[in-house]
């Protein structure tokens, strides 16, 4: 039966919910205890108040006879809000504590493949999605798991409490409350759960569709067809509206059924009370009102359960997605200590992406010597970037070898960062101070060292003009760095890191030629003596290179120094002429 609840299926092999429930079970237990107390007080307040009034109506000769109910009424009256307050703080604290763990766990899962996460795919969106998943799991705890456990606790108390007085009545209530706590929520998952999933899917489709078309709004307006799209969108939208309407209709019906169950419980208690305590005008009849009135405040504890249960279907996706992430493993990396000069050696290198049969690199041979400046040219898709990740050791060759000083690059792991610095197309600046961003290159760096690298990348004057200088937040309102400036900041980071080899992966796409030439001049000047691997899509600044290779379809099609190629290769001359605006 329970296999029909997607969440339970997703929980089977789960690393995100179950371990933490176990780890923080005591805090959870306290929060549940407080939650049960809250509702217990709510019921008990009406219970004692009902008893107090009935008892008082018998005109007891002494006020002291109702002293206990009076005190209890006040105590429960204050107890309910106090417990609730404590419960909320405890449960939120508990969930936030787990969130800290979730975030760390998510980060750790992504870290091994960090290099491939960003880049040409719009993976920014996926990262946002994963971050959202973490908050979904939060909601799963707060809105579903927690209230459910509280209601089970209450259920237990009610059944045991009544059971002591009358086992038969306890059995009957076991059934009625059971329907409220288990059957109706389950019914809700079966009927509305699927609708909720459909709703989410339709909504995501609408989101994607609308975003797609609003992004292309220029074309819609130029084509003069905006109205046609609006009509099509509304038609699409109607499906979603229909699903939502069906869900809402069911919710109204379900709430009605839930209330009928409450009515059945109330009437059962009236009759049971009359049979058990009534029949005579005497002190025992005072209990009847007490029992009947106590039941109404409990409605609040049970009413939200079906909605909470049906919501779980939405969280399932998040849970599945998070569980699908790789479990981080700690590869045993042996400690390497290389000494210069640092030479790359590439031998018969082939690379095919896992799970595809499209070979990206087809038998590459190349040597890159310490201090050499090499440009790798080629169209998009020719395998340039794949070669870069092989050089860094983020990928392992399918056939052949690629090694730094004889050690295969894939064996370096994170130690590669000591030898090879990387600047890619859109250098990421963290939302923290300028100094912190640059200090990523060397955490121990003094302010003088930072000013020094800023001067070397020609940003010193610009930073000096900023009111907060090095402590300027990178994303502070109104302050945006231009493309060229961002690259220079990234370069400062690399200079501080001071690696013997620096790899540039199409760093100048989108820069205009003059800005680009300026940046190139700075790079040439500041990285003198280091190995420079320059992946590029055009020939700006090609003359400063010692070696140029052209990749086409995974193979080397041209190789040589710029002056050699200039002298011998017509294609090279044509491309260069075009780049310099000389081509007719």
């Amino acid at each position, binding site marked *: 039966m329970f296999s029909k609840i997607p969440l339970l299926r997703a929980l089977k092999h789960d690393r995100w919910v179950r371990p933490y429930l176990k780890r923080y079970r005591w805090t959870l237990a306290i929060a549940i205890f407080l939650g049960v107390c809250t509702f217990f007080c*709510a019921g008990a307040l*009406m219970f004692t*108040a009902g008893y107090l*009034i009935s008892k008082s*109506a018998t*005109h007891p000769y002494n006020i002291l006879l109702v002293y206990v109910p009076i005190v209890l009424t006040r105590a429960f009256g204050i107890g*309910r809000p106090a417990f609730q*307050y404590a419960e*909320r*703080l405890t449960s*939120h604290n508990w969930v*936030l*504590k787990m969130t800290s*763990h979730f*975030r*760390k766990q998510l980060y*750790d899962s992504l*870290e091994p493949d960090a*290099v491939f996460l*960003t880049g040409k795919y*719009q993976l920014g969106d996926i990262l946002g999605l994963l971050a959202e998943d973490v908050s979904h799991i939060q909601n799963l705890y707060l809105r579903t798991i927690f209230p459910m456990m509280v209601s089970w606790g209450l259920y237990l108390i009610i059944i045991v409490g009544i059971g002591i007085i009358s086992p038969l009545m306890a059995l009957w209530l076991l059934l009625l409350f059971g329907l409220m706590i288990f059957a109706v929520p389950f019914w809700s998952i079966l009927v509305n759960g699927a609708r909720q999933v459909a709703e989410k899917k339709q909504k995501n489709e609408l989101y*994607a569709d*609308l975003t*797609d078309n609003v992004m*292309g709004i220029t074309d819609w307006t130029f*084509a*003069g*067809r*905006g109205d046609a799209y*609006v009509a099509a969108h*509304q038609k699409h939208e109607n499906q979603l*509206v229909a699903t939502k*309407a069906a869900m*809402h209709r069911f919710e*109204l019906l379900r*709430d*009605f059924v839930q209330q009928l169950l409450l*009515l059945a419980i*109330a*009437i059962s208690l*009236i009759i049971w009370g*009359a049979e058990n305590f*009534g029949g005579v005008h005497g002190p025992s009849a005072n209990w*009847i*009102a007490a029992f009947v009135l106590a039941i109404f405040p409990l409605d609040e504890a049970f009413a939200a359960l079906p909605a909470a249960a049906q919501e779980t279907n939405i969280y399932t996706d998040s849970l599945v997605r998070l569980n699908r992430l790789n479990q981080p493993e700690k590869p045993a990396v042996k400690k390497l200590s290389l000494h210069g000069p640092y030479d790359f050696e590439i031998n018969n290198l082939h690379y095919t992406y896992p799970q595809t049969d499209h070979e990206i690199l087809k038998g590459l041979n190349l040597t890159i010597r310490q201090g050499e400046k090499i440009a790798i*040219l080629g*169209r*998009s*898709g020719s395998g340039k970037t794949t070669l870069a990740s092989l050089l860094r050791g983020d990928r392992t060759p399918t056939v052949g070898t690629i090694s730094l000083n004889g050690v295969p690059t894939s064996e370096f792991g*994170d130690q590669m*960062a000591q030898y090879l610095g*990387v600047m890619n197309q859109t250098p990421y600046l963290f939302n923290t101070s300028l100094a912190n961003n640059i200090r*990523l290159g060397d*955490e121990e760096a003094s302010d003088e060292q930072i000013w020094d690298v800023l001067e070397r990348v020609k940003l010193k004057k610009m930073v000096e003009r900023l009111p907060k200088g090095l402590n300027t937040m990178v994303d502070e309102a109104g302050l945006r760095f231009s493309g060229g400036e961002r690259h220079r900041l990234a370069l400062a980071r690399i200079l501080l*890191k001071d690696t013997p080899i620096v790899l540039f992966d199409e760093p100048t796409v989108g820069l*205009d030629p*003059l800005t680009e030439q300026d940046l190139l001049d700075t790079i040439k000047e500041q990285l003198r003596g280091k190995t420079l691997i320059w992946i590029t899509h055009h020939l700006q600044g090609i003359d400063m290179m010692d070696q140029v290779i052209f990749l086409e379809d995974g193979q080397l099609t041209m190789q040589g120094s710029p002056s050699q190629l200039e002298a011998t290769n017509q294609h090279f001359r044509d491309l260069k002429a075009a780049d310099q*605006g*000389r081509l*007719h």
Partner: protein
Amino acid sequence: MIDKALFKLPGARSILKRLVGLYVLQAVLIIGQALFLTAVLVGLWHGHSWQSQGRGILLFALCFVLRQIVNWWAGSKLSRYARSAAQSLRGRLLKKVFALGPHLTQDQGTGHLVTLTLDGISNIEQYIELMFSKVLVMMIVPVVILLLSFYLNWVCALIMLAVYPLIIIFMILLGNAALDKAKTQFGVFTKLSNNFLDSLRGIDVLKYVGLSKRYSKSIFNSSERFRHSTMDVLKIAMLSTFALDFFTTLSIAILAVYLGYGLIQARLTLFPSLAILILAPEYFKPIRNFASDFHATLNGKNSFAAINKILSQPDPVEPKLALHPWSSNDDLQLQNVSFAYEHGAQIAPVNTTIHGLAKVGIVGMSGSGKTTLINMIAGFLKPRAGQFVIQGHPVAEMNLAQWRSQIIYIPQSPYVFTASLRDNVAFYTPGVSDERVKEAIHVVGLDDLVAELPDGINTMIGSGKRVLSGGQAQRIALARAFLDRKRRILIFDEPTAHLDIETELELKKRMLPLMKDRLVIFATHRLHWMHQMDYILVMNHGRLVEQGTEAALMADNGYYRQLVDQMRGGSTNVQ
């Protein structure tokens, strides 16, 4: 209490009237339910059997069930109304978005508009439901119960009346305190909550510098700091719920104790006392229900205001012009056209004439203002001053449907819709035959792509399906231009800036034939295009510094010449 703008929704008044009727009926049933229950309990207390109370129990059950039915009925009526109101609002919003076009999306951002259209409208739907149910119930039910309580026992009624404003005052006070606290923490808050996403986005950089493993700890620590500051705010924010609960439960306790004393002293009788005790929770229920949804109403209110603001923007009014299809004798003059951005950058007055089927190049480095100039000509931006004279008609801006219908506009990254290749290519000419589409695809050199696609030209492409390279997207835009020969004006904005040089040269071969017999306005910083231009506008720091033919500009030895020399990087290889 109810947002006045809600009344302006079509049909709002009539649904409100009906709902008020239903809620009054509901209040009466609540009272009936309470009184019959009281009667039954009093009867049992007197020692009567439950069978003798059968009629009372039935009436109690009847009131209870009827109350739920009224609830159900009102709920479904209201949700139907809210749904249709939201739908019509969404329709109006979409029409407005597409009528205002790129102006609005630039101003508001695509993401924001999409969220507003989908989530924003859902928020409003919820807002309407909450306002018309919970707020209305809060204004009706407690009043009716209070009136009856005055009849039953005026002292109790006074206690109940006195507590109500107390609840509201404390909720406001504590709510504001929480808001203040949240505001003082706001900096920390946003910083820490963004910190996580920020770290994920820059995770590759961390890896490149070898810090990624150690950073995991820092994520945990900053998340823990986030927890501490959140808890600080929650401690106060939750006090307002505490106050609400405290006053309601405490006042029920006080009522019970007061009634108890009265009964002992025989001043009171059981029936009214018990009735008040049963009614008291119902009296407080509406405000508690409202408080729990208060935040949802805030979201709805904000979305409603944001959408109304967009809807109140006037539709673009077009001057009545009779533009004819662009021909070789037509002129477009720019007379002192200037522009200023909010952040300070500006375009100094531009004067030039674009004539007939000329190929006009606009050259300049980034930030020189060439894109701004192009955007004014294409009608995306309204000049701050100056005017255009098109085919002899003076106009203040080029945002004209008759102008747009003659243009093919090709930006740096043309948009590829998530649709079939065919629909993408035939976007401007939806009725065209498959043969023509295939011809266009062949002309722009996309045959290789078609060969790779499983369903040929009917394969879905675009960001959601198969992402095309920059060069392929450019070719699709060119194919659109090929198919729509009626559009005689081509406007390019940096079409090749991000392409590799070989792709650019190949594309150039395909582009040049399409430029024939058309007016071409071509902004770029790639100078080799200038050889194909008849006339060149040179932009520098927001000024039109030179204009003329390439030969004239080269001879002038001005800024253009300087650019050309710099780009050749002091190369000795002068032509």
